[in-house]
């Protein structure tokens, strides 16, 4: 089982849940404030109505202020069940006329501000440790014998208000919770629905035969196309690998079977030979054939190594000089036995290029080997020259392997770098070059292979590699 970093659904649900919860809290807070306001407004109207009704019954009888508290006034207040009621009537000159003496005083400044605008004055204060809402009304009595201001203050405890506010808030809470639940449900379903194409891809992959490496055909949303493309590229690479392996095995079988059969036949003939001269001749022929077969097997294996690398290239910044020097040091003994001079000129010093060191080494070995083997017939001089220099574009480095033999016929120059098939492979094997593979590896590292015949003869094989960029140097 693969380790995973958690479910997308759960991630989405948590994220969305947090957003919803935050939003919900905000709404709840606002609603709670709003509910308090609404409750206050509603019950303030009751309080005002009770106050106005009571004010109506204020009169002057025989030069005395008379207040006949109407039943309807306090009855109005009993609409908010269970709330206590206090009130008092005060006059400018006589002070308390009737009602409760020790109830909270209004703020005189705020009160006159309200009165100056013709509004009743409302305020909230604690009476006997209980929050009360008060209204104060003012009236100027101008009757015979009486000319003074009278204030009626009426208050009611806040049970009904808080209950209404609580009730409103609770109701909205139900709505908010419902929305959050719906939102989460929606996210859950939506996530499932959006992830469905990926499940289809999974299905398609699971239902395939192990050897079937065709591109996926399931249609996916744009966000997932990159994933599917990556899968398809990966499968294409697998397909190529597989094709190449098949071709290689077939080729190897063909290449090995014929010389081995011929060796066996010659050995049988040699075994029957009684004449010592004839026997030696046959033995020498067997030796030559065995050497040829050996060389052919080496080529095949070298090819196989390179071929494999095409798909596992790991290009990174490397000092090219080191790789070349080491490889050439390995090749030097072969050059010496062949009596060929192997020279290396580095015009650019220890620069870094982006390349896979194994691949470079193998390619270089291959090129030098070819030059040693095939570049010496009719050579103007017995030398293989390896050079390292900048290309015309200074972002590129050229690694050139040059011999002084006959070079390659023009039509073959075109052919060798072409993408190979089975038939071409056979042709190329004759020339001893897996150059098509080399070309592919170079391409894979972001570089190029160029082949050219020298003006005075000889073959120039040039590897172009990109210089490492500065930031790559630091990594």
């Amino acid at each position, binding site marked *: 089982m693969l380790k995973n970093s958690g479910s997308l659904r759960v991630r989405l649900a948590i994220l969305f849940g947090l957003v919803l919860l935050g939003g919900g809290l905000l709404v709840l807070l606002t609603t709670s404030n709003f509910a308090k306001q609404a409750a206050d407004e509603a019950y303030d109207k009751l309080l005002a109505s009770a106050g106005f009704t009571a004010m109506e019954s204020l009169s002057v009888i025989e030069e005395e202020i008379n*207040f006949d*508290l109407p039943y309807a006034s306090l*009855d109005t207040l009993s609409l908010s069940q269970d709330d206590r*009621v206090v009130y008092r009537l005060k006059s400018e000159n006589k002070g308390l*006329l009737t009602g409760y003496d020790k109830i909270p005083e209004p703020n005189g400044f705020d009160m006159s501000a309200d009165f100056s605008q013709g509004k009743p004055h409302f305020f909230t204060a604690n009476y006997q440790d209980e929050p009360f809402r008060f209204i104060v009304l003012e009236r100027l009595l101008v009757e015979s014998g009486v000319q003074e201001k009278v204030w009626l203050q009426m208050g009611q405890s806040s049970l009904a208000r808080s209950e209404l506010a609580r009730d409103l808030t609770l109701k909205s809470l139900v709505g908010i919770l419902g929305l959050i639940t719906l939102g989460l449900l929606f996210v859950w379903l939506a996530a499932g629905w959006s992830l469905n194409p990926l499940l289809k891809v999974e299905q398609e992959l699971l239902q395939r035969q192990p050897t079937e490496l065709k591109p996926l055909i399931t249609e996916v949303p744009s966000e997932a196309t990159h994933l599917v493309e990556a899968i398809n590229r990966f499968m294409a690479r697998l397909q190529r690998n597989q094709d190449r392996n098949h071709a290689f095995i077939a080729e190897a079988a063909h290449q090995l079977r014929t010389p081995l059969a011929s060796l066996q036949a010659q050995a049988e003939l040699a075994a029957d030979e009684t004449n010592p001269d004839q026997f030696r001749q046959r033995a020498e022929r067997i030796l030559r054939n065995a050497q040829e077969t050996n060389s052919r097997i080496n080529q095949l294996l070298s090819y196989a190594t390179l071929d494999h690398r095409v798909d596992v290239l790991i290009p990174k910044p490397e000092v090219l000089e080191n790789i070349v020097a080491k490889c050439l040091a390995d090749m030097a003994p072969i050059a010496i036995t062949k009596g060929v001079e192997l020279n290396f000129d580095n015009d650019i010093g220890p620069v870094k290029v982006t390349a896979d060191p194994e691949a470079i080494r193998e390619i270089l070995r291959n090129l030098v080997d070819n030059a040693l083997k095939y570049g010496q017939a009719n050579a103007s001089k017995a030398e293989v020259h390896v050079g390292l220099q900048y290309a015309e574009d200074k972002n590129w480095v050229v690694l050139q392997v040059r011999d002084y033999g006959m070079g390659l016929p023009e039509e073959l120059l075109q052919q060798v770098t072409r993408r190979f098939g089975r038939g071409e492979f056979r042709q190329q094997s004759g020339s001893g070059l897996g150059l098509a593979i080399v070309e592919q590896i170079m391409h894979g590292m972001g570089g190029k292979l160029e082949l050219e015949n020298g003006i005075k003869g000889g073959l120039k094989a040039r590897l172009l590699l990109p210089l490492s960029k500065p930031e790559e140097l630091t990594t």
Partner: protein
Amino acid sequence: MRRFLRITLCPMLLLLTILNTLQAGTYPATTQPETTLKILSSTDERVMKTLIADFQQLYPQVAVEYLDRNTVPLFDLFLEEYQQGTTADLIISSAMDLQIKLVNDGYADTHSMQSLEWLPDWAQWRKQAFGFTYEPAVIVYNKRMLQGEAIPQSRFELIEKLRDQPDFFSKRVGTYDITRSGFGYLIASQDAQQASTWGRLTENLSKVKVKLYDSTSAMLNAVQNNELLLGYNVLGSYAYAASEQSDNLGIIFPSDYTLVMSRVAFVSKRANNPDQGHNFLDYLLSERGQQLLANKARLYPIHPDIKGNVTYSGLQQAAQSRGPLKLIKLGPALLTYQDRMKKQNFLQEWENVLR
């Protein structure tokens, strides 16, 4: 003159209070450990005796002290005790307005409403004041002296008869002295507030030189003894109980409207033993207590499931053939006639007409 009376009355009341404290009915507990429940009530002790005994059957460890007062002295005594620190545990009074005033002004403890869902909204206030009875205010008449057409069935008929036969009724009609009876004041203020007949009624009562009583039993006795032809606005429960003892008492539910009041109980905030106060209140409102209120105390229990004549359901039935019941709801509106100026005006007017 009146002012003088009040001043001299005060020390007398105080003396009376002390005497009455000594006279409180005590019902000792029968098991230990003992705990004492004090009830301050305007309901006659003899009416409540059976209930207390039954309560003690359930809670034998509770000793009960029952202090019986008229509504106004009860109100004063409670306030005085409250100032001093501790009061009785349960306060019961038929003066609903005075009880509401005490509750409104923060003297009551909150009661658990568990198992009281059946109680109608108007019969409780703030979960502190609880009405446990459903009693009509009635007209009682002397059966021997008033018969047939002569019996007034409504306030209109009463006014008519008083107006038409002032000599016949002279000094032979009684009602409460509302300056001294809290219940009388309550019922009169409700009459004044509910109906336009009040003015004419008081005028005509004045014309026949109405006799004023400060207790129900005194008025009932007077009717029974042929001193009175009828009594107006009498507490129906006491009248019913008295009519069961005497052939001479008739009861009329006025057909224009019949006022219905409740005895109100609350547990004091400064109770010595609030737990037992709540306990007795629960007992009063329990089916067992309510049943006993109907059967023995004849106090018209408020529980709708109790059957019988002197019950909520009985009264509802009786009213169907008579006229509307006007119940007095518990709530701050009852504070209106307790307003100092309002009360002064109302009493002034009453005295002006009736004295």
